[in-house]
């Protein structure tokens, strides 16, 4: 029975199997016979590593498609089902044959590498065992993955693409995929490591392989017509459209993430003045060829002041991490202008200003720095309309904060004068959700000041600790600029954080705020 099945498989796929076998041997012969190429790769075992990363996945994919997918696509498994042949045996023969071919090809490659290196390299039994074990683990994992994948029928192309792009997306997103389980088996140490047995990676590869093999067999055996048969049916036009749409969406998403991550490279500022306070690092640099002594002194002063302020802020909020801050001195900027550097959140915060201009006002720079830093720290979420009033408030209030709570018993008359025109007549909690509209109404003139008065009123009515708790709840955690940050923002909305931190709801607070501004004196 088994012989009949094996003969059939060999007759059906003999050429392809032979081709796969010859490719690996041909590749090795080329590497061995071609001196420069051999040296470039670093020896025969490096060539084996190259085969593991290129040939093994491709060959496993081809084997899975040939042995499994073809049978279900052509519906010839229905013919086999009519024969006195248990279905599991048919699958077991295919599984074993494919694994044997792949393992045989890699085994031949390892043998060839050993043959070539036997005169020059010290091939210890431990090294040989390590190479063999790592190869076996990797081949087992990749083969079982492709085996299970072959049962997915009409979804296998879409799934394969998603898997491939998912891998590259993770890889480019900073997730060290190469250090995970099976991938660690064929890392750069493959050809050189002579002592350390990657036990954990081997165990993960073995367990994953077992799971994938079980999944493949389950898809081929569960149900009468088997899940694989159902999946092998052709797609309906509606399903084609849906799958195409889904695949394109996933690909675009992967592309977007990859591009986003790739361009978010750390900012390099050679020769910058650096100041550090705890988790805070501030870099200040002049965008001029030769900074004057005055400019150098200004850079030093501003960097130290910004580091002081941000260090205090990070401590006040309880931040375990803080984005780097970059200050760029530009002579060409108008006196009091402070520009945002336009970095991605992952890169940190950047501001530009003319630090030596007469009209330059350091607190304006600090306000902009706090604003940019909070945006970077929260992955941009601080700037969303629902969070904007708190973001504006902290940025505007922090450089002017009073060290003692008693000093905040009255609102600063200048602030009141600036904030009152911005305050909508019917000011209520709904304006806190639509803060950008409030700011637009006033053409952004006093919205920051108005927001800052809110923080002062909050401390006056409910205590400075309540204010600190609320701000810390809003900004303590670093948020990545992706769906995780978005989810956190959705599930931990500002209003809920406010109530939890202060014990009052925002409706009551808005009334208190409005009344406080109405009753305060102006200069």
């Amino acid at each position: 029975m088994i012989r009949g099945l094996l003969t059939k498989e060999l007759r059906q796929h003999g050429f392809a199997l032979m081709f796969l076998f010859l490719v690996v041997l041909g590749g090795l012969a080329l590497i061995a016979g071609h001196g420069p190429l051999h040296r470039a790769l670093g020896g025969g075992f490096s060539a084996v590593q190259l085969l593991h990363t290129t040939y093994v996945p491709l060959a496993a994919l081809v084997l899975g498609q040939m042995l499994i997918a073809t049978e279900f696509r052509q519906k010839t498994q229905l013919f086999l089902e009519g024969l006195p042949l248990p279905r599991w045996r048919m699958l077991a023969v295919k599984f074993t044959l494919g694994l044997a071919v792949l393992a045989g090809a890699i085994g031949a490659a390892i043998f060839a590498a050993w043959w070539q290196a036997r005169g020059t390299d010290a091939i210890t039994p431990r090294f040989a065992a390590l190479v063999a074990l790592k190869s076996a683990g990797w081949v087992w994992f990749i083969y079982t993955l492709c085996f299970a994948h072959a049962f997915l029928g009409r979804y296998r192309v879409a799934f394969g693409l998603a898997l491939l792009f998912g891998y590259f997306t993770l890889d480019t997103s900073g997730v060290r995929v190469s250090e995970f389980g099976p991938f660690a088996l064929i890392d750069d140490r493959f050809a050189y490591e002579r002592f350390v047995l990657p036990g954990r990676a081997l165990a993960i590869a073995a367990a994953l392989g077992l799971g994938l093999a079980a999944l493949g067999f389950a898809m081929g055996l569960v149900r009468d017509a088997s899940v694989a048969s159902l999946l092998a049916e052709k797609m309906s036009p509606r399903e084609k459209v849906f799958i195409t749409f889904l695949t394109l969406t996933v690909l675009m998403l992967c592309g977007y993430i990859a591009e986003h991550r790739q361009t978010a490279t750390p900012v390099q500022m050679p020769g910058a003045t650096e100041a550090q306070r705890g988790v805070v690092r501030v870099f200040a640099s002049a965008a001029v060829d030769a900074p004057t002594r005055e400019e150098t002194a200004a850079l030093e002063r501003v960097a130290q002041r910004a580091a002081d302020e941000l260090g205090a802020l990070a401590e006040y909020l309880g931040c375990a991490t803080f984005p780097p801050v970059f200050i760029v001195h530009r002579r060409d900027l108008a006196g009091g202008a402070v520009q945002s550097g336009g970095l991605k959140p992952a890169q940190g915060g950047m501001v530009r200003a003319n630090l030596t201009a007469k009209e330059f006002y350091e607190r304006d720079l600090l306000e902009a720095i706090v604003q940019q830093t909070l945006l970077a720290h929260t992955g941009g979420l601080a700037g969303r309309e629902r969070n904007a009033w708190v973001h504006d408030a902290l940025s505007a209030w922090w450089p002017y904060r009073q060290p003692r709570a008693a000093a905040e018993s009255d609102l600063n008359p200048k602030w009141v004068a600036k904030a009152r025109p911005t305050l909508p007549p019917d000011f209520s909690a709904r304006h806190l959700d639509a803060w950008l509209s409030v700011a637009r109404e006033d053409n952004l003139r006093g919205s920051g000041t108005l927001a800052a008065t809110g923080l002062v009123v909050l401390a006056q009515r409910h205590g400075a600790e309540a204010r600190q708790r609320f701000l810390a709840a809003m900004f303590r955690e670093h948020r990545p600029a992706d769906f995780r940050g978005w989810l956190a923002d959705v599930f931990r909305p500002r209003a809920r954080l406010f109530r939890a931190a202060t014990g009052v709801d925002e409706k009551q607070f808005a009334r208190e705020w409005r009344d406080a501004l109405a009753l305060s004196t102006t200069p």
Partner: protein
Amino acid sequence: MHTDLPPNLPPPIVLEVRGLRRHFGKVPAVDGIDLHVREGEIYGFLGINGAGKTTTIRALMGIIATEAGTISLLGETTRRTSVAQKRRIGYVSQEQNFYPWMKCHALGKFVGSFYPAWDAAEFSRLLEVLEVPADRRVSELSGGMRAKLALALALAPRPALLILDEPTAGLDPVARREFMQLIVAQARQHRRTTLFSSHLIDEVERCADRVGIIHQGRMRFEGTVGELSRLVRRVRMAADAEFVLPLGFEIWRDESLDGVRTIALRAEPAAWDAFTLPPGATIEAMSLEDRFIACVGATVVRI
């Protein structure tokens, strides 16, 4: 095979199904059917498309599992047909999903590796008799040729039971006639028990010793064509004539057309003997097709 039984004893039962049940989702494909086939018998399994014929046959072949019921096959009772039992069955499926790249003789060699009793010489002989070119690839064969190849593959292991699932579907009338002649010849010659499904009445009427009519997953009738004739008859009367259903009778079809009403009635022969025709009514001749339609069609038809 029991070939020397006393002539007064019926041949032993080779295949018996009791209370077979199988649903696909909420739809009952087979809903508790019973059937039995005796040794050497040709059994026609008749039903319209979707009646449950293929599900029953696939359950008999162990390709699908059953939810309830037992299958007694070649003296062994099981819930699901085993590999050992399948080795004694020749099976021709509705669609021939052979490997298109294989040549006919290679396909025989491949299939033969699963049957201990495979007769390679018989396979070659059958290919010759059926005029199937042994050196031709399956992909180069016509539908009729493939059906014949399937029959040769099913007969070559000299099975005790031959099961064919609509084997002539898709064949032209000539090929169909030849194919069925071969099956009958094989069954008569080797006393081979044969069960074949079909929705073609003439085919069943011509070839089958006994028929089973399945409808909506239930067995509506099992017996010989003659028994069906004795049980089901049609009464013709005026459309406005009064008809009272006698005790022991069942209306299978009540049809009114152009002022004439025809009622297909089912009753035991004894009841028919005691039946009195209403005034002006007559008993009308019925073909197997009429009886089949009465059995599985709509009960009341007004045109």
